[in-house]
């Protein structure tokens, strides 16, 4: 309970929770108002950032093949360190709203086709040069170049023209997009001097820390940049990322105080770690989810009744309980949950062997259904497949499990085989999530989902600036995917990180793990 109170207190201090809400929850936990008030003032005092020291994170997801070139960012290590040395135009806050960063303000033409970002003045790169709209333009050019290998290329494709106009950068789109500013938060789009065209891996940005050490797959380090423009980030004198891919080594490094922050805590270890004094589990529900993907254009999954039968044959509650130990929420066969600002409920599908039997019979398919899975598809994917097999057997559906090797799973099985396990980290907006994974022509349309009505609605919502109308369109799109899609979404996982005794300033951020990848610049070491 003390952990819970402590956390709520921190939330009040960081403005996520109101004072009144805090007192209400404290009362619910059995605390008297005066006591709760004194706790709150303690929290406020503890929340005064402490400057100095070296903040170290021990992270999973780095290799000797990593680079500082933002175009190739893909692992937690690259991205977390990237957000310590670089910044984008905007930042998505923990509530899903947009905050200014290198752009002070932005706005669009009425048809959401022309977007203007006003670039902040007086911000300097680590090499001393002042950041200008020309640098922003060059950065966007580098990532939207057709021949670029940038991970942001996909989201930049809708942009027709980019131009500098005084202190502004103006984007002209091919089609209207009400969500364009959200795309600018993408971790590839760190603004670099001349867009990083001269030396993509130089690691020069405008962030709170200057890169001092770059040993790919081993250690990355930065020291506080004296000329940093804001004072609510970057409290430690030094930050360091140590790559620790072994889960046990990561936990022991945290326990022995060699690192202050770790990521990827396995759900089965959470209860053990909670017992260790001084350690705090930082779990937050995000948009990430685990899926079983049937390819809608490949037999036998080209039959919607078979897909429905499988959807009714999965026991989501049991899977959440046993695979995620409750650290997540049940999914409902579409990729959106309450963490999205414009989310609306679709009636929750429940485990129903009778309905599964009915649709299975109607599909005319008989004989076993082959499901491919692997340890790398998501943590616990093999166990999850076995649970699925058992629940399906009760509905008379014979599910055959094939365990594939992790090496080559993403190149040989995923998007090639008709039915396999996979995962998504989610996206900041529904538009992005559907655009990358469900739009009929999307590169990662893993379920071969083709629905003209759905595509049309996607563009319609993108062009719609009225949130209520968009909400309605997204609700209908969710229903279509739920009813006809090839993706079974049994559960949304939580990001589970952990911090050591003295780490303060953590903000639960549902956007990504590690406090939205901002842990290094948001946290400080107390006393």
């Amino acid at each position, binding site marked *: 309970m003390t952990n819970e109170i402590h956390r709520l207190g921190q939330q009040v201090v960081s403005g996520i929770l109101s004072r009144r809400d805090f007192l209400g929850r404290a009362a619910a936990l059995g605390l008297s108002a005066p006591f709760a008030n004194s706790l709150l003032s303690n929290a406020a005092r503890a929340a005064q950032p402490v400057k100095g020291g070296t903040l170290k994170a021990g992270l999973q997801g780095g290799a000797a093949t990593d680079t500082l070139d933002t175009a190739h960012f893909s692992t937690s290590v690259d991205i977390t360190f990237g957000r310590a040395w670089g910044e984008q135009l905007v930042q998505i806050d923990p509530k899903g709203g947009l905050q200014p960063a290198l752009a002070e303000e932005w706005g669009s033409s009425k048809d959401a086709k022309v977007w203007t970002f006003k670039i902040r003045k007086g911000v300097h790169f680590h090499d001393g040069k002042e950041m200008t709209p020309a640098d922003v333009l060059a950065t966007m050019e580098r990532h939207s170049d057709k021949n670029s290998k940038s991970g942001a290329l996909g989201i930049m494709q809708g942009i027709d023209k980019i131009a500098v106009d005084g202190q502004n950068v103006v984007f002209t789109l091919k089609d209207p997009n009400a969500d364009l500013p959200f795309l600018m938060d993408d971790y590839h789009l760190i603004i670099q001097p001349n867009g990083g065209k001269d030396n993509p891996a130089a690691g020069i940005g405008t962030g709170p820390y200057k890169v001092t050490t770059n040993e790919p797959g081993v250690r990355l380090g930065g020291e506080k940049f004296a000329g940093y423009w804001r004072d609510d980030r970057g409290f430690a004198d030094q930050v360091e990322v*140590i790559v620790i891919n072994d889960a046990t080594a990561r936990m022991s490094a945290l326990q022995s105080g060699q690192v202050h922050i770790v990521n990827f805590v396995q759900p089965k270890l959470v209860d053990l770690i909670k017992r260790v004094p001084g350690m705090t589990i930082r779990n937050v529900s995000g948009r990430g989810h685990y899926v079983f993907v049937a390819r809608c254009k490949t037999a036998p999954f080209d039959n919607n009744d078979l897909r429905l039968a499988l959807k009714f044959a999965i026991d989501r509650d049991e899977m959440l309980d046993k695979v995620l130990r409750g650290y997540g929420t049940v999914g409902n066969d579409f990729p959106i949950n309450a963490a999205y600002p414009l989310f609306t409920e679709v009636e929750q599908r429940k485990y129903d062997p009778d309905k599964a039997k009915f649709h299975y019979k109607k599909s005319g398919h008989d004989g076993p259904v082959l499901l491919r899975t692997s340890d790398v598809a998501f943590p616990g994917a093999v166990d999850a497949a076995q649970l699925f097999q058992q629940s399906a057997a009760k509905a008379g559906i014979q599910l055959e499990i094939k365990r594939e090797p992790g090496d080559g799973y993403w190149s040989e099985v995923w998007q090639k085989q008709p039915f396999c396990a996979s995962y998504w980290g989610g996206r900041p907006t529904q538009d992005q999530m559907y655009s990358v994974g469900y739009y009929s022509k999307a590169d990662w349309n893993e379920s071969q989902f083709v629905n003209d009505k759905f595509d049309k609605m996607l563009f319609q919502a993108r062009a719609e600036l009225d949130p209520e109308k968009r909400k309605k369109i997204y609700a209908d799109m969710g229903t279509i995917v739920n009813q006809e899609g090839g993706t079974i979404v049994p559960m949304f996982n939580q990001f589970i990180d952990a911090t050591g005794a003295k780490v303060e300033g953590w903000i639960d951020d549902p956007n990504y793990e590690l406090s939205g990848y901002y842990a290094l610049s948001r946290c400080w070491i107390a006393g």
Partner: protein
Amino acid sequence: MSSSIAKLGAQRIALGIMLLLAVSVLIFAGTQILPGDVAQAILGQSATPESLANLREQLGLNQPAYVRYFHWLGGVLTGDLGTSMTSGQGISSAIKGRLWNTLFLAFWAATVAVPLAIILGLIAVRYRNGWVDKLISGLALASTSFPEFFIGYVLVYFFAVKWQIFPGISTVYDGMPFLERMQAIAMPVTALTLVVLAHMMRMTRAAILNVMQSAYVETAELKGLSAFAVIRRHAFPNAIAPIINVVMLNLAYLIVGVVVVEVIFVYPGMGQYLVDHVTKRDVPVVQAVGLIFAAVYISLNIIADIAAIVANPRLRHPK
């Protein structure tokens, strides 16, 4: 006498070089058999026929295999190991630091493990079949029988988490003070020592015991030498060749076989480097590392051979 040693030594070295060449052919051929080529691996899913052709041209993949082999070999001989596919950086410079780290770790592990193993072996022979012998053999066997990761985790649990004597992760970097570096590698050195100790210790014991059966040892005993003096002056020098052999085998293991220990202790050595690149199918790096490992293995074996020739005059005069 010394000329025959030099001659035999030169023969062994020549043989070693030929073997290394043969290995290089095998490594090169092995990576050619893999489906797809480097160009396809670089371009991945986005490969179009034209871009593949361009990249092949650029990488010289259009030339016949034997031309490419000699090109590669020529590069290796001049210290150019090629370019990593994933990072686009020269492999030689990236490997240098890693190789140095691995050698550093292996050196200290050997410095602890070899004398310890030989001394324990000698003690075991002195008190053979007594409780001391049984205790030493039993403990050594136990430590070898546990898998490396288990030993590693047990060490971490006690020395890093519980008592906090040594750091649990051994990230070393350039310019790290020597004492700090030694502290950082304390645990991997301990783990490696425990892993290789028993093999060397038991081999020492067996080799000396073998010699102890000889008539001259009996003579030495009969003339009244103490048990340790017999072992030291008469048995050990005659058992040295097999001992060197097993020591060299274990040294080779300390360099090429420590992947698991490096992963557990987060030590930036060759093993970790190889694993990262195998996962990404970075063939040039895998080739380079394979060749370096083969060279290490072959040179240590040559050293063992030559040491055996020096230690045993009979080997210098083949019948």
